[in-house]
């Protein structure tokens, strides 16, 4: 890790993606995308539905290969990898966070977090220790034995983040991670992402909510399969936001107490 100003970790060069090539239902989802992301950046990809941002996310996540162009990720050429090699890359370099959490049901938080290490062939002892460490990092050290249906949405997403982090990935990919969460929990998750970004992990986030994109240090806007805007900025700090909100709610609580006391006195 060389920090926020380090070398290029992700490099897309003139990437095209065409679905159903050669048929009548041909869809040109990506039309020549060239982007470089350096280590430690917090990038938000924005766009309306149908803009191609999901396709871009799938390519970045090594779930799919580009039709043409090249994609370098952490020194590997992804465009010509086999399915097995793609799986290996996902396991070793990437961590995924999904909108609907995608935890295995009826499986404990600890076992969910262990999953990526199972496919890496780690021994049970190592897996347990690292999964525990990862859950503690997201603040769920006390709930390791709980199954997803015993956890709140925010807690489930934190288990998913712990799962994404357990393999010590270089890139964390989050696809609408706050889409199913209320605003306070969303801010908490974004605070966690920012904390991870500060520790050197590259975060790439897909969202359609502008107030979520505010927490990123760089915003890419995709439209009709091309990048129409690429802007670096100073991010809003989610931790400050949380402080403000809790102060605000403290003020409201104090106001309520005061009103109540006045009412009592008047009686």
């Amino acid at each position, binding site marked *: 890790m060389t920090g926020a100003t380090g070398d290029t970790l992700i490099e897309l060069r003139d990437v095209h993606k065409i679905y159903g090539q050669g048929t009548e239902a041909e869809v040109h989802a990506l039309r020549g995308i060239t982007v470089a992301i350096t280590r430690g950046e917090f990038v938000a990809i924005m766009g309306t539905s149908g803009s191609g941002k999901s396709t871009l996310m*799938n390519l970045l*996540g090594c*779930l*799919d290969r580009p039709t043409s162009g090249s994609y370098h990720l952490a020194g590997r050429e992804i465009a010509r990898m086999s*399915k*097995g090699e793609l*799986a*290996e890359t*996902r*396991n*070793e370099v990437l961590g*995924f966070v*999904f909108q609907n959490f*995608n935890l*295995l049901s*009826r499986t404990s938080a600890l076992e969910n977090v262990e*999953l*990526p290490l*199972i*496919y*890496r*062939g780690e021994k*049970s002892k190592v897996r347990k220790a690292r999964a525990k460490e990862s859950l503690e990092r997201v603040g769920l050290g006390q709930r390791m034995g709980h199954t997803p249906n015993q956890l709140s949405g925010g807690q489930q997403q934190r288990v998913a983040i712990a*799962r994404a982090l357990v*393999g010590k990935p270089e890139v964390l990919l989050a696809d609408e991670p706050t889409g199913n969460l209320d605003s306070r929990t969303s801010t908490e998750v974004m605070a966690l992402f920012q904390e991870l970004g500060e520790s050197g992990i590259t975060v790439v986030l897909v969202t359609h909510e502008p107030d979520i994109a505010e927490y990123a240090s760089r915003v890419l806007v995709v439209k009709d399969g091309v990048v129409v805007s690429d802007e670096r900025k100073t991010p809003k700090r989610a931790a400050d936001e949380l402080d403000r909100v809790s102060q605000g709610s403290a003020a409201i609580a104090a106001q309520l107490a005061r009103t109540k006391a006045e009412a009592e006195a008047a009686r």
Partner: protein
Amino acid sequence: MSPFQILLVAMRALWRNKLRSFLTTLGIIIGVGEVISMMAIGAGAKAQVESTFAAMGTNLLIVLPGAANTSGQRGGFGSGQTITWDDFSAIRDEVPTVKHAAPSLRSSQSIVAGEVNWTTSVTGTTPDYFDIRNWPVASGSAFTQSDIDAGTKVIILGQTVVEKLFGANADPVGQSVRVGTTPFNVIGVAAKKGQSASGQDYDDTAFLPATTFAQKIQGGLNRYLSGQIYVEAISSDATERAEKDVTALLRQRHHLTDRDDDDFSIRNLSEMADSRQQSADTMTALLASVAAVSLLVGGIGIMNIMLVSVTERTREIGVRMALGAKPYNVLLQFLTEALVLSMLGGLVGVIIGVGTAQWIAIRFGWATLVQPQVIMLSFAFSAFVGVVFGVYPARKASQLDPIEALRYE
């Protein structure tokens, strides 16, 4: 992923749908149980046929005299007197494929011991008879060649006769009995032999020296042997040769030309045993193939449920793939589930099959025989069914597109 880890994941997935897993396995349980119990019935029947013929004596030929022809009325085989004592000696001594030969002169006689009498089949024979029939003397001794030569009045009793005359578990050796009016000294008791295939009690019998029998019961020893000759071939493969050799010898001794029919007849018991054996084999094959079909149906049940499971768990497959599961990891996982289902079914099926075989033996009194190789085979077959019917769903799972799978609702 270690094999143990894969097994653990498979067991956990199956345990989540306990009832469904059990019902799926039921097909295999019934199939394997059926194969084992049916094969046990078949093998039991075959073993019974084998032991029945073994009790009669293996490699056995029976030579019967020809038919008497009294003024046009033909009496059937054994009614005439065409075989002489010299023919018997020639068969015994001159044919190289013959190991033993013994006469069997038979008559129904009343045997009296003190106040009690019992009518039974009395056989006059020579010591070789006991070798041919695999029928040792249990207590006392058999008669010897000198008893034959001297025509001594000794008798060997069968177990049933002992029981009827002296009571169960009595030892009559040394006692005296009368056959007709002649007193005989009991020198031995034949071993228990049980029943014939047609339910006849072999032990309801008594034996005398052949010469004594001819003199005292048939009314004098003459040239002709009034009875049958039991012939044992040197091996079961040589039985047919022995039959031909004895036929040739007797035809030559009786001066029969090519145009004459045999004036005797030879029965080949090993042929009968073979045909019985064959019918038992056919029955076993039939039962086993019915059972194998139900095992196959069980396999289709597994395939069906595995396909349902793959569809149901498409999202899970997508998640696992996103987290780094390679196609063969997914393939192995689903294949293992199918295998666990079928092999657990096989195991329970073996237990139920063996139990059923025992129960049938007790409840219906059928002879059943559970062979270890049948257990191994049907268990292996259930595993094979699991692999064959598990491959298609597992391949389907492993070839899912992770993007589609993650999006699947």
